[in-house]
């Protein structure tokens, strides 16, 4: 009995997390459906951390809808393969393009910055996908990319895929948090 009550109470708390994590938005609505176009580049440090966000950057709440939904992150993972990001970045290990599962983030690891990297492209090879990918799918990609460096909760980040395993678990680097993220963590206690 008491345990049942306790369970029910803890559930009410779980409910939020649970519902968010399992939430599946199939139809993101017109705003997010339109393809993402490049934001004007900051001439001073192109694509630098201060790059202004693209006009239709969703609010933090809308963002969390991607970063807290296992389904959205999973979709991001699927698109990461479908759009052949693997071709250059591998499964996060890096190759032609930089690795994504470590802490060296040339252009910053904020969602907006990754968004900009995908939509605008970056010097030395990262192509611009401007106009090619619907907003919400870009955000799903962003969420997945961030999950690769351990910036998303474990119960939301996808686990192994049905491909050749990338690294042995015991050799895998511990998930790293990019510096700017850590700064933020200190900044807002």
């Amino acid at each position, binding site marked *: 009995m008491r345990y049942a009550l306790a369970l029910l109470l803890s559930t009410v708390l779980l409910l939020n997390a649970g519902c968010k994590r399992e939430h*599946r938005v*199939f*139809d*993101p609505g*017109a705003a997010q*459906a*339109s*393809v993402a176009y490049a934001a004007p580049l900051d001439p001073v440090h192109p694509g630098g951390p201060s790059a202004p966000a693209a006009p239709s950057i969703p609010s933090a709440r809308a963002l969390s809808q991607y970063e807290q939904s296992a389904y959205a992150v999973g979709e991001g993972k699927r698109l990461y393969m*479908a*759009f052949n990001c693997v071709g250059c970045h591998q499964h996060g290990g890096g190759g032609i393009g930089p690795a994504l599962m470590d802490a060296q983030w040339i252009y910053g690891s904020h969602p907006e910055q990754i968004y900009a990297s995908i939509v605008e492209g970056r010097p030395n090879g990262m192509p611009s996908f401007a*106009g*090619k*990918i*619907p907003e*919400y*799918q870009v955000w799903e990609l962003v969420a997945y990319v961030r999950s690769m460096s351990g910036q998303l909760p474990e119960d939301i980040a996808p686990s192994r895929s*049905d491909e050749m395993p990338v690294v042995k678990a015991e050799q895998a680097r511990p998930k790293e948090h990019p510096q700017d993220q850590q700064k933020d963590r200190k900044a807002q206690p």
Partner: protein
Amino acid sequence: MMFLAAVPGFSGDQTSLNPVGPGASHIEHTFALIFWITAVVYIIVMAVLVISIWRRHHSLDTMPDPQPTSAESDQRAQRMVAVAIGVTTVLLFTMMISSFAASRAIATMNYEQALTIHVFGHEWWWEVQYPSDQAWKSVVTANEIHVPVGVTIRIHGTSRDVIHSFWAPNVQGKRDLLPGYDTDLMLKVDQPGRYRGQCAEYCGEQHAHMAFYIVAQSQDDFNHWLQGQQKSAPPPATPQTLHGQQVFLTHACVMCHTIRGTTAGSRVGPDLTHLASRTTIAAGMLPNNTANLAGWILNAQNIKPGCRMPPNGLSGSDLQDLVAYLETLQ
């Protein structure tokens, strides 16, 4: 056995009871045999049960004392039960043999001069390939399998993601497409026509909308169709279709779809080189016409929630031109 399926408004193009190929008809014969045997047995057993209860029943309020059982009546009963079990065994054996015979007949379909067609299950559509030794001759299409009548077909399939099951009941029994396995399914269609098939293994959000059609046609029609499919897409003729092509190549479409003869070459979604030659879109869900095509492109998610086709916020004119262009892809 059609009487089991025959109802007004039932086209009979997706039922095992209306076989149009040797595979399905062998199965249908076994089905009929088992059906009649079990039906008769069932009726007899139930009759015996009801009669014996009726003969022996008393509607009493108090429960009488247990009756002594007479040895000789039980011995008679024992003999009867022994006979009944014997009969059961014989009947089971009969049905088993006919089942083996059917399996055998299906298994011995001739692999040699069979036409090979590759079928790949995707969430939630079917990729169909007609391989050929010359690369330019091999054909890729989706959700519509054209076959020549009377020719043995070898469906060589596997899955690109989860387990699907290839099933066109009028033609042949189902066969799972498993990731990591290559499966061969032999079939033959004896009557021209369109036969519907559907994924029969639960495969996620849109398992319900994963249909395909087998189009059986004469050898000549088939060859003609195949040659048509081998061609690349015709270049856009009018300024409208030209703009439509531009829209296709500069928007999300190009990320997933192929149109041979253009720069669009992604294999994530169905090959659209001859989209207009197909009768349905969205894996057999909608008839292929202007309105459906436009609606599908605009917001596939509210037609087939969870499917891989994203909604596209295209302006009215862009959409019109795009659809116009796609409809030229005969």
